[in-house]
């Protein structure tokens, strides 16, 4: 399964992950990812029938806090970090 990975799959994954990758980068990544995934497929040797996946490692009690509005960061402060802005809005290229 893992060793089936090829250039087209790398291109497809990069597209899904919204990353540009050049042909040189694909040639660089392909053997590395093939090797890593093939090593990692050794997990399939293990029997995990009827085992629930463990998503978070410590069984934490969920807790609720009062729903009180707190002003932590102002709009101006947040917009300071924007690559581009107009007034109180983030500026992005037209998308439609």
């Amino acid at each position, binding site marked *: 399964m893992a060793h089936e990975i090829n250039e087209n*799959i790398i291109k497809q994954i990069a597209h899904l992950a919204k990353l540009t990758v050049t042909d040189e980068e694909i040639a660089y990544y392909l053997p590395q*990812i093939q090797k890593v995934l093939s090593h990692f497929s050794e997990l399939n040797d293990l029997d995990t029938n009827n085992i629930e*996946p463990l998503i*978070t490692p410590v069984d*934490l009690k969920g807790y609720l806090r009062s729903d009180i509005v707190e002003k932590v*960061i102002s709009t101006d402060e947040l917009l300071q970090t924007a690559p581009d802005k107009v007034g109180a809005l983030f500026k992005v290229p037209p998308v439609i």
Partner: protein
Amino acid sequence: MDFLQSDFVTLTQALKNKEVSAVETAQFFLRRVESLDQQLNSFTHVNKELLTQAEELDQKISRKEAVGPLAGVIFGIKDMLCTKGMPTTAGSKMLQNFVPPYDATLVARLKKADALIIGKMNQDEFAMGSSSETSTYGPVKNPWDTTRVPGGSSGGSAAAQASRLAMGTIGTDTGGSIRQPASFCGVVGVKPTYGRVSRYGIIAYASSLDQAGPLTSNVKDAALTLEIICGQDKYDSTTSDHVVESFSQNLNADIKGKKIGVIKEFIHDIPDASIAKNFNVAVETAKDLGAEIVEVSIPLTQYAVPMYYLISASEASSNLARYDGVKYGYRTPKDQSAQLSLDEFYCFSRGEGFGAEVKRRIMLGTYALSSGYSDAFYLKACKVRRLLRQQFIDAFKKCDIIMGPVTTTPAFKLNDKVDNPLKMYLNDIFTTSTNLAGLPGMSVPFGMAQQLPIGIQLTAPHFHEQVLLNFAYALENTQPALETRKLRPHVY
């Protein structure tokens, strides 16, 4: 005042007694950074406000106001933690211009305890690495031998701590990123239990594994730092309400009659002779201190590396989806000159903003989560993770703590593994299990190999940080005191 040797309590007491001022302390460390860091590249940013902040603390003391338990202690903070008004880049071009408008909870707690922040520490990009070579600011060097890596990803924190460019530093540990560089640089490093320390304001890499913790020159300083930074936080619902003990007050080096577990699957197969020899010395030392050694079996640790990389890459691919060039972070300059489609805008911004290792892990994670493969990779790893945690819980029925090596070798040479990811990943064999099981772990300096420091790794049951610190304290007490050690880092 000997700033090179002083522990936190001694400095804070001296400040209160006005034997030394916070400004003098800050000046001392700023001068060290100025003169030594060119050789290490351990800082990404030096706090320009430090002297002003030190002066404010001195005034507070003059006015006889109460000061916090870390008053005047100079801390360096890994560049993964948000610091209000100070750049926070995660070592990435993606965040090179990011100045957060708020402090991470951990940073806020240090400041509330009157610690002073000297700057931000270099690291592997987005904490993805074991050598601190993937930062956009260039590699960090090991102060013991600048042709070698300091370990990673908290390599800047460990290197600066070893060279004493700060009194304490903060790192993050997702698969060993505090313990491994602590071992390579000869400092104490603690990864707390998952849920002990708030992750609010810490740049997310793999959320079910990430924990922040201290790197210090001694166990006592690490214990005091933990007291300040642990505890429930309303901004992070995964933090635990477990009581935070007075770790530093409770330190007890008496381990007589305690049981130390050694993992059968590891100890008979340590590849490096110097690491194996040092570990055996640690075992004999523990026996001399009256502890009993018991062999425990955790067979699934052999699968920790694939489990760790599948889970962490999957979580990273999801966490790093937020970097879209819209609200903050890097945006491709191509959008100025050409009409880009939305897809192109995202792809160029992310493709140009992320470095090679980050892209590799995002792609690995995207693949491991993709339709048709997620059962075989991501979910399979999560199922084995449950079994691994159970094997640790069972092992702790037979012992108080588990002791082992931290790394497979002492610090390796720069560029040695950077183009061979599998080789780099396999280096993490001894550290990743701790994060997968959510356990607290630490590295304590113990012995030397090939003129390089090495650490011993201790792992305790969930929320048993006190036990961890006590064993580390006992081992530390058997080592020559820092001031009498003949060997010092080359950059010091």
